[in-house]
């Protein structure tokens, strides 16, 4: 597979957009090539242009793409169509939407076997089941007869991978195939892809924004920025000695699992990716580059080979080595608060939230027996004043519902929430204004949490007015001060949300939350829809604001590394209950709860040399309607002790430093098991 000097242009009303420029790379048979870039870098456009699947207003301006000697771009589209699904296959981002909801999964695989392998109906059906078996789906015959809504995302993605591999393609394009999945499922799928591809001679183009995923999977990596390839090389070389400041910066953005805010500061990248019609004259990265020279701004450098197979578009790459050493240092010293002196800000006791399921119709209405979803099922947690409590777990574990119960957005079914030792009414409506002010929330999606008709200034001022008896000037002053604190220019006050980028919107959301001078901030996956570089700068911002203002955070996320970085205390949630609570560094080292252990081993770490333990969870989180008896985790637990796990609810086991694990296995035994498996992992 050879791409050379490929340029793609979109014709828009405001003129042509040169989205991809002059990109060249090659993928050998059986090689996995990781293409890494942030959103808007043109990586998906690049992939679609290679297979002539651009939208109507897109066209390839220049360059060539050859597959096995055959020029793809000059092929008439009818010929190209013949390659789709046979020699070139694709796996897409979100398996839930990539599978047709009204056709059985097996048939959706079999139809390709008929169209592409010329199989008869019966044979194609058998082939589909065989492929499902190959991607390690338990009970493939049963799965083949099911519809998309009956299967989990991981299952569906496996089925799509099975479809893509069935024709033994020459090129497989995978576009963020694990982004929509949970971290544990992602780990399983990555293992599967790596193991499966060993037996194929397929060239794989793996597109992702996640550096950790590439480190785990790819042989070589290309880093794409604003439509141009800026660095390329073997994964090991690029990660260990990056030769482009952008790569270096990207690597510095990713929080690591063995350090937190006290030790390092994330390296955020200033500014944002330039639009293709607003490119700087010189190096495209120069405006954001901390090491930019005057020469960088005059002439645009091209990708040059600087070592065996290692190319970079930075002429000053030799300087980067020096920069590497200084990477993880704090600009400002982090002053840790003393935990013992801090009072409790939030105390939740035995919080439960059960939802009655809709449906069941009249009969269920009369008999009163409706299935109940136990989203949160008895959680007790405490947050200290000025500290951050991180709440982690897979999707569907109830962590968001818990946060919403604390905020009063959901009315808890049982239990109580105390703020500064005062019990709060369950519903937000019943809470006095003063209390409402004290708890603020930052939501996952700033698109929908900011009123599109209010200007940024109004949004912040409204929230500032909550603290009551502030004069107009004071409100004005606070608004300006907050805009400054979240690093937005003052003239943004007059802008409407749609005029801002995703990161800027979230900055406004944070500013507006802080405008009310809260005592506690609930952050529900606040940055999971943002790019790593933006995420890093916002996490730094949160840390800084906490330092200055002493606000306590409850930080909800599925991203363990992010939680590890930002939180002082971490609570791990599984199926509506906590299974481990402790200080960040305690939770992340043995002994840990088997679930935490599995989560940790699933994190894709952007370090190709690091060999993590391989603990994989089978299946998906059980339904919260039919909660497993005994220990809720026993159906998936790799360290299940015996029948006791199925029958008896495990007790909380206290360790030093208020570290608690809810498991039947004694902590010492856990530690021994887990340290042993750490050593046993392959070098």
């Amino acid at each position, binding site marked *: 597979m050879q791409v050379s000097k490929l340029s793609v242009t979109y014709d828009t009303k405001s003129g042509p957009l040169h989205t991809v420029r002059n990109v060249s790379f090659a993928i050998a048979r059986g090689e996995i090539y990781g293409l890494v870039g942030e959103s808007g870098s043109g990586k998906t456009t690049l992939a679609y242009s290679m*297979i002539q699947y651009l939208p109507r207003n897109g066209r390839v301006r220049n360059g060539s793409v050859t597959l096995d000697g055959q020029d793809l771009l000059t092929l008439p589209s009818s010929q190209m169509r013949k390659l789709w*699904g046979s020699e070139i296959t694709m796996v897409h*981002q979100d398996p839930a939407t*990539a599978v047709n909801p009204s*056709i059985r999964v097996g048939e959706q695989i079999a139809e390709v076997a008929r169209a*592409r392998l010329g199989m008869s109906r019966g044979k194609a059906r058998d082939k589909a089941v065989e492929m499902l078996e190959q991607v390690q789906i338990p009970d493939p015959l049963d799965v083949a007869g099911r519809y998309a809504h009956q299967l989990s995302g991981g299952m569906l993605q496996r089925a799509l991978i099975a479809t893509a591999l069935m024709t033994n393609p020459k090129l497989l394009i995978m576009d963020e195939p694990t982004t929509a999945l949970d971290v544990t499922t992602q780990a399983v799928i990555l293992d599967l892809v790596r193991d499966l591809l060993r037996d194929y001679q397929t060239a794989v183009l793996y597109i992702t924004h996640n550096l950790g995923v590439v480190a785990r999977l790819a042989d070589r990596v290309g880093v794409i920025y604003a439509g141009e390839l800026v660095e390329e090389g073997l994964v090991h070389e690029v990660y260990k000695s990056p030769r482009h400041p952008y790569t270096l910066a990207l690597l510095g953005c990713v929080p690591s699992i063995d350090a937190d805010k006290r030790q390092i500061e994330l390296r955020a990248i200033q500014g944002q990716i330039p639009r293709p019609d607003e490119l700087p004259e010189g190096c495209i990265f120069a405006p954001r580059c901390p090491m930019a020279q005057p020469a960088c701004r005059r002439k645009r450098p091209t990708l040059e080979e600087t070592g065996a197979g290692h190319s970079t578009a930075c002429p000053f790459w030799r300087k980067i080595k020096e920069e590497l050493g200084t990477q993880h240092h704090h600009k400002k010293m982090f002053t840790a608060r003393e935990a013992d002196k801090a009072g409790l800000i939030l105390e939740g006791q035995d919080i439960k939230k059960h939802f009655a399921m809709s449906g069941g119709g009249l009969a269920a209405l009369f008999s009163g027996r409706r299935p109940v979803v136990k989203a949160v099922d008895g959680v007790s947690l405490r947050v200290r004043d000025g500290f951050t409590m991180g709440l982690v777990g897979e999707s569907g574990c109830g962590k968001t519902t818990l946060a919403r119960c604390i905020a009063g957005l959901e009315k808890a079914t049982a239990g109580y929430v105390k703020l500064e030792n005062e019990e709060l009414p369950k519903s937000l409506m019943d809470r006095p204004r003063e209390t409402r002010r004290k708890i603020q929330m930052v939501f996952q999606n700033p698109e929908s949490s900011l009123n599109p008709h209010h200007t940024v200034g109004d949004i912040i001022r409204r929230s500032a007015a909550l603290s009551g008896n502030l004069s107009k000037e004071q409100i004005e002053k606070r608004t300006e001060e907050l805009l400054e604190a979240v690093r937005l220019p003052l003239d943004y006050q007059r802008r409407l949300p749609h005029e801002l980028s995703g990161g800027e919107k979230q900055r406004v959301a944070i500013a507006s939350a802080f405008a009310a001078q809260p005592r506690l901030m609930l952050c529900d996956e606040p940055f999971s829809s943002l790019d790593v570089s933006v995420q890093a700068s916002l996490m730094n911002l949160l840390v800084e604001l906490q330092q200055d203002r002493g606000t306590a955070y409850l930080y909800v996320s599925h991203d363990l590394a992010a939680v590890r970085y930002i939180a002082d205390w971490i609570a791990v949630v599984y199926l509506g209950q906590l299974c481990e609570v402790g200080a960040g560094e305690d939770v992340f080292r043995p002994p840990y709860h088997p679930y935490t252990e599995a989560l940790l081993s699933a994190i894709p770490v952007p370090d190709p040399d690091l060999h993590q333990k391989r603990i994989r969870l089978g299946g998906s989180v059980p339904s919260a309607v039919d909660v497993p008896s005994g220990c809720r985790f026993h159906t998936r637990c790799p360290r299940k002790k015996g029948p006791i796990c199925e029958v008896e609810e495990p007790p909380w086991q206290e360790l030093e430093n208020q570290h608690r694990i809810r498991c039947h296995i004694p902590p010492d035994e856990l530690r021994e098991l887990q340290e042993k498996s750490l050593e046993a992992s392959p070098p």
Partner: protein
Amino acid sequence: MWMFLSRRIGFMLVGMLLASMIIFVLTQVMPGDVAKMILGRWAKEEAVNNLRKKLGLDRPLYVQYLDWLTDFITGNWGISLTTRVPARPLVLQRLRNSGRLAALSLVMFVPLGIFLGVFAALREDSPIDRFLRGGSMAFTGMPEFVIGLILIAVFALALDWLPANSSVGPDAGLVEAIPQMILPAATVSLVGLGYIVRMTRSSTIDVLKADYVRVAHLKGLPRGQVLIKHVLRNALLPTITVIALSIGWLIGGLVVTESVFGYPGLGRLMLYAIQRHDLVLIQACAMIVVVTYGVSNLVADLLYSVLNPRIRLQQFGVS
């Protein structure tokens, strides 16, 4: 599955029962004294009282209602007050005519509407799409009698291809009636067409943008197969529901069209009955319309559940 079915049928029956009560109250109770109405304004008090007794109007309301309902269910629909013939055969014959007209209209506008809707969706925002969108809007907005009169002026008067008068004889067979039914059916079709085109177009556009359609293309399936199997199967769901729902309207709601063409359908019979204060006939027609609406809603409901695996599996429990 039986649970689901019986529940839906139960809903339908409850709905019909409520409608029948409304009909009963509106026709039998509200207008005042039926006996007086039958005998005329100057009838003697004694005669009125006698007739009242004879008709059972002196009994409590609910007894009257139950009696009336049983009569209707057992097929005893009474004698038309004005024509002095039994209401049942008359209404059923008109129902048959209306059913024929509805069927012919469906045959005319459903395939065409779906075709045009999909055609427009595939060429979203092209001049053809814009034309179809504008055209369908115009026809749905235009009153039926205007369309009907235009059709008569063009095809009956100017071109003389088809008869302007559609008063089909009571014993006419389907084949000989068809020429006379074409113009009214075309009128109805033009109105219905607009709905179908717009419905099909918008849902097809939605589905065309779905990830699974892109996947189907890139899996290498032939274009036609992608369109029929992956797109239409999902896109036509709402359209099919709308079509099933429209059966009620086609049978009981074509008063204007039937009047313009003089077509002997249920709508025109109802109009006649209302103009002549023929309460018996009004009741019979109204009840039949209620039943057709109920049944067509039920059919729409069931079709949607059967065609959508999500609901089918939930409700029927079998795959």
